[in-house]
């Protein structure tokens, strides 16, 4: 039987699967080993090419992209199968993207480190896979490690997915042990794709990547019908029609094909330059005799966390704008608009899917565009209902009205935490401090606990992860997904310097926490702002009501006692330097504040307890 060709592969030999794993649990190594085991990359070029490329991807990408790899595999039954290994993004904020990757598969390999057990994020993705009715193949990796406890964690996995511990495969991606058995299980257990080869084409976009040379490369799973090179395609969410410049599969290099058929996975290039025109979750059909009904589940990415991003050196503003424009091409979820801050100058108000998305964007801007950035404290999106029942959405504390508001709604998440049982008390305490409500708790094994909480997203974006890690010595893992909104007693706290509000420090907080926030910020600023020639009050206020106050005493002495012969040029140079420094001061009313003070106040988190 000949090797099946892209575009004419019988669905009965196709197996579409993904690997669900926590970072460091060995997904990349296992993927490499599979490439080798199926023979599409030999042992020597493996190291020279594929690993290197993956490293660059890992360095550069939000996720390790371009991993929808087509693996031809001749199984023990002598049939040539086609295994499509689809990558899933590894970040908590990309639940939606993960769900689309899973929707492109019939099965999932659940890969867990045999020395560490399952992590919260893996568990969350596993639940997503189960909701998508995927066949799960549980696998423990790193069984070669001395610290591996395969029996313990096999029992844990069996408990979670409701199988027998004997069903859990044990592999070492490092040595290759068990990889052959895994491939056989993939062939045996994962169902063939279903779909109507003769129906109008419908393909699910599960990834969309901007490439400098090719434009947007769109990864799709064909659900029904076929997409050929000669077709024009239509994006079903927008109706936009594009020419197809190229169709192909990745194996593991791009292989151009005449088309891709039902059940297959491949890529399309249409020449669009912005991933927003080819969005994850959208359905692609052909423009002639196209489908009338899209595949379900498409959603516009909705930013939930907002923060101001400013260049530390104000002259870098144009570079920041260019870098954001460039990043946007590859990140459909990123939104931003110019913003001016009294304290920080010119920057952008940015919206992100979540805290990690925010951190990734900031890190990419800093690394790829070589920018030094400062971000304001992140806040979430609020829905406000006024007395006259009119509604407004607030994503920036500066938009938060001072007058009375009938109701304020804030987003809440369902959080999953996995931790050693000894930390249950301390994590409960943390969640309670953060206005959490416990939804449930399960022992995964005798010393590992899964806790489920409902928490305001605002509490998570403020330092929650750091606190969780420090209170559990790094052993707890966290995952969350949005679960709706709740009304809450929220207020805006302004920080006033000599009577003037400093925009970058205004925050929307729960009324019970207003004092804590005010005290923290005023004390911090008191330490950071140099004494002035006059007394400077630093106040925290809700509307016009001051809730806490610190005072920077006036400076009384700023003079060098001696100024004789040799001191004169030294002194002149010192004054020139001080004058230069003064130019870099920001004026808040009459108060001179070094920008470093604002930056330090924003970058340090709560004092460690």
């Amino acid at each position, binding site marked *: 039987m000949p090797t099946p060709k892209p575009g004419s592969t019988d669905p009965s030999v196709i197996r579409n699967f993904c690997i669900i794993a926590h970072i460091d649990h060995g997904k990349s190594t296992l993927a490499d080993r599979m490439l080798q085991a199926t023979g599409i990359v030999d042992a020597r070029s493996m190291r020279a090419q594929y690993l290197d490329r993956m490293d660059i991807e890992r360095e550069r990408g939000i996720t390790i992209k371009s991993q929808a790899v087509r693996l031809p595999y001749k199984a023990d039954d002598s049939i040539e199968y086609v295994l499509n290994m689809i990558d899933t993004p590894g970040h908590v904020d990309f639940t939606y993207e993960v769900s689309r990757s899973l929707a492109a598969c019939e099965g999932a390999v659940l890969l867990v480190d045999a020395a560490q057990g399952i992590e919260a994020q893996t568990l969350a993705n596993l639940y997503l896979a189960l909701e998508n009715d995927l066949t799960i193949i549980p696998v423990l990796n790193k069984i070669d490690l001395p610290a591996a406890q395969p029996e313990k964690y096999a029992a844990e996995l069996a408990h979670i997915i409701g199988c027998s511990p004997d069903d859990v495969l044990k592999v070492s991606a490092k040595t290759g042990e068990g990889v052959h058995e895994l491939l056989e299980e993939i062939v045996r257990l994962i169902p063939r794709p279903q779909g109507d080869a003769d129906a109008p084409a419908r393909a699910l976009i599960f990834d969309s990547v901007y490439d400098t040379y090719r434009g947007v490369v769109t990864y799709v799973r064909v659900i029904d019908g076929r997409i050929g090179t000669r077709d024009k395609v239509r994006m079903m969410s927008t109706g936009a029609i594009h020419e197809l410049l190229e169709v192909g599969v990745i194996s593991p290099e791009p292989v151009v094909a005449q088309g891709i058929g039902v059940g297959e996975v491949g890529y399309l290039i249409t020449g669009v330059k912005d991933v927003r025109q080819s969005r994850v979750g959208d359905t692609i059909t052909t423009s002639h005799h196209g489908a009338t009904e899209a595949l379900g589940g498409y959603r516009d990415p909705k930013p939930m966390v907002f923060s101001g991003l400013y260049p530390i050196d104000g002259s870098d503003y144009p570079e920041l704008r260019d870098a954001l424009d460039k990043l946007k091409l590859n990140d459909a979820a990123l939104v931003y608009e110019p913003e001016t801050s009294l304290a920080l100058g010119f920057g952008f108000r940015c919206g992100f899917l979540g805290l990690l998305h925010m951190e990734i964007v900031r890190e990419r801007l800093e690394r790829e565009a070589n920018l030094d950035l400062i971000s304001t404290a992140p806040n979430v999106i609020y829905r406000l209902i006024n007395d006259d029942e009119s509604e407004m959405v607030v994503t920036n504390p500066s938009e938060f009205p001072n007058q009375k508001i009938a109701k304020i709604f804030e987003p809440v998440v369902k959080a999953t935490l996995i931790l050693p049982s000894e930390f249950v008390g301390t994590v409960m305490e943390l969640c309670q401090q953060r206005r959490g409500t416990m939804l449930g708790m399960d022992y995964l094994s005798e010393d590992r606990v899964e806790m489920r909480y409902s928490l305001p997203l605002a509490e998570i974006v403020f330092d929650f992860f750091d606190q969780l890690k420090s209170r559990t010595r790094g052993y707890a893992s966290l995952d969350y997904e949005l679960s709706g909104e709740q009304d809450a007693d929220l207020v805006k706290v302004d920080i006033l310097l000599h009577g003037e509000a400093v925009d970058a420090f205004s925050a929307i907080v729960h009324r019970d926490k207003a004092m804590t926030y005010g005290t923290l910020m005023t004390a911090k600023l008191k330490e950071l702002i140099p004494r002035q020639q006059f007394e400077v009050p630093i106040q925290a206020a809700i509307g016009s009501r001051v809730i806490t106050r610190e005072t920077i005493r006036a400076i009384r*002495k700023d*003079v060098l006692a001696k100024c004789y012969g040799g001191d*004169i*040029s030294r002194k002149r140079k010192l004054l020139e330097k001080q004058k230069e420094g003064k130019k870099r001061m920001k004026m808040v009313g009459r108060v001179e504040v070094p920008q470093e003070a604002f930056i330090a106040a924003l970058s340090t988190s709560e004092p460690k307890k």
Partner: protein
Amino acid sequence: MGADQVSLYVHVPFCASRCGYCDFNTYTAEELGGGVRRDSFHELLNAEIDLAAKALGKCTVTTVFVGGGTPTLLGSVGLNSILERIRDNFDVALHAEITTEANPDSVTEQMLAELRAGGFNRISFGMQSASSAVLRILERTHTSGAGVQAAGWARTAGFDHVNLDLIYGTPGETDDDLRRSLDAAMGAGVDHVSAYALIVEDGTALSRKVNRGELPAPDDDVCADRYEIIDRALTDAGMPWYELSNWAVPGGECQHNMAYWTDANWWGVGPGAHSHVDGERWWNVKHPATYGERLAAGVSPEADREVLTAEQQHAERILLGIRLARGMSRDDLDANAAVTGLLADGLLEPVEGDASRVALTLRGRLLADAVTRALIP
């Protein structure tokens, strides 16, 4: 060079021991390498005086100031020979102020008489404090009464002007310690007092102690309080301020230092000494051995120089001039909107009897660097 009037500074880089706070260019050894010795050091200084005279051409010396270090370690013979060499080379003005610095414990009544006879007419003693606890922290070798005693001897010897230097803000010093020091100084019958807030200079024994936490750093608010105490006491005693850190009986102002503050021409003789003539500044090599080598070879000991731009000269005139009680002419601060603001803020005030000039208020004196930054365009 075209100066017709010049002040001379002579630097003597020797001390019997180094005080803990001191970062001056001074050495405690008597033999510094390259044949440079304390007991013959005045010969090197005299050699530079010859060079200065050649460079300056015919001009009048208006003031001489021998500083250090501890100049009196050269003895009256050494110091008087320097003065003699100056007279050999220059016209010295008839009533020229001729000062030497001295440590209270490095002089005797006889030595003072010899210096007076040699032509010195002003002497400045480093008294620093009347508190023996403070003197110990400063690592001064003299006793608390030595400064007052030496000042008395100087008056007996016939010096026209006697100054006592005080240091305030030393860790451990109390307001009462300072008041006792002031009483002692005022009781010594001097016509001039300089008082300096202690500066912890990098690299000194004091800064090491502060960094190690063995001594607290001087507190700016405390120093501000002490300055006010000093200013009140000396003003009440008939010695108003004439420069930020200097108070004198009218007529007792140090003419040599006034030359610095009025941007006059001065030549610094000795290792590390700075000079300023006609908008140029230069400074000598710092180490006495290198200094000795240069002079032995008949070469200028200059290490480097800078030519001041018009803006730099203007900045210097402001940073120096604003330190004086006589203040500055508003014309010299012309087009400077800052003046109005500083007057409104109570940091500057019109000079009494001359509304065309402005000077620092008491609060302004303590914030003089901030005022200067505001005044320099």
